[in-house]
């Protein structure tokens, strides 16, 4: 009983955000939402890979195929943005002079345009995939 109490107290005293902390995006910028979505899509892709590696003939079905494609296209589009940002290409240069309430250049500079481009790429790829999965591929079934 005493041990259980200690664990309970430790949980609150540590005050860690935990897995739910990944998705607390409400008060932050759009990059945090994309971070959460990138995590979920990444985990779902790994989950799909397990049966896929077990038997490559396994198929998630018509709608499953469609959803998987959407997930993968998002992960690709956002992944391209992340690669460019994380190599330091679009995050801007450190400032020598700051405004009194300076907003971060890494978020609100050219990186924001890249976010828009990534989302646009996602929509384009998703529409193409939806057309292929739901109309072209479904006709052959």
């Amino acid at each position, binding site marked *: 009983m005493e041990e259980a*109490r200690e664990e*309970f*107290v430790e949980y*609150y*005293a*540590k*005050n*860690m*955000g*935990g*897995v*739910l*902390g*990944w998705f*607390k995006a*409400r*008060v*932050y*910028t759009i*990059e*945090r939402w*994309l*971070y*959460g979505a*990138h995590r979920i899509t990444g985990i779902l892709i790994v989950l799909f890979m397990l049966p896929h590696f077990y038997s490559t003939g396994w198929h998630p079905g018509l709608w499953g195929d469609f959803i998987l494609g959407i997930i993968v296209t998002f992960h690709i589009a956002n992944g391209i943005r*992340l690669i460019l*940002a*994380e*190599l*330091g*290409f679009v*995050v*801007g*240069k*450190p*400032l*020598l002079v*700051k*405004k009194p*309430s*300076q*907003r*971060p*250049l*890494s*978020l609100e500079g050219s990186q924001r345009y890249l976010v828009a481009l990534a989302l646009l790429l996602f929509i384009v790829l998703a529409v193409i995939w939806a057309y292929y999965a739901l109309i072209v591929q479904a006709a052959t079934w």
Partner: protein
Amino acid sequence: MSTEAKEYTLPPEVLEETVKASEELWKPIKKVKFRIYKYNPKKDYAPHWEEYELEVSKGMTILDALLEIKGEKDHTLGMRYSCRMGLCGSCAMMINGKQMLACQTRVIEAAGDGDVIELRPLENFPVTRDLATDFTSFFEKHKAVKPWIIRDEEELDNPTGPYKQTIEEYAKYYQFTDCIKCGACLSACPTAATDYEYLGPQALAQAYRYLVDSRDNGLDERIAVVDVAHGCWRCHFAGSCSDVCPRGVDPAQGIQLLKGLIIRRKFGFKPHKPTEALPAKIAKKKEQ
């Protein structure tokens, strides 16, 4: 020449206007309910929330409100503050779910249209009591990246002259020197939510600050600390650290530039050759 001090008074209309503006700033205009997280890990089984109602004015900050609550309503309230002007970084806390400095946030602005303000201790930091959190591991992480100029000991012990630095070289790191170590960035970081050992945005941005300093010669030493499993590669650019930073330090930018620097270094590129110490005039005079 008369020694009498000349008494200076404002023109009456200016004085009246100033008094009026000041009265307006401190006149109670709204009742706001403060929901405050109360928890003492040594005594309590679980945290609970306490509510206090205060009449607030236009100029009142969250810290003013907390001090009023502590003075008049609940003297057991635990919190940390020091300078009251956004320079020390002691009073960072979660105000309505977002990391902010209590001394720089006005109650009216934080409440917005509503009339409830929720105050929590910084997430991802162990709670000491109520709104005060334990910064031991945060400072240890900061120390781990060696936040000082690394040079040959001979030059540091017996300096022969100042180091030359151009404004361009200075501009590379100046932004990151504004960090006040308030902990808001580590608290907002989603990676730190599940990884206790992650160095965090503050330490990584400081590592970059010293790596690009033209006087520094600690490239290999410092990269050995940040280019590890719980180092800079855990950052996935959620950008929340820069979003909450009260000083505009932009740690996310620093971490991404640090990653680029490490990758370029793997291809044999070094950010700079440490500058030579300039011959000092004092040293020359001594020789003469």
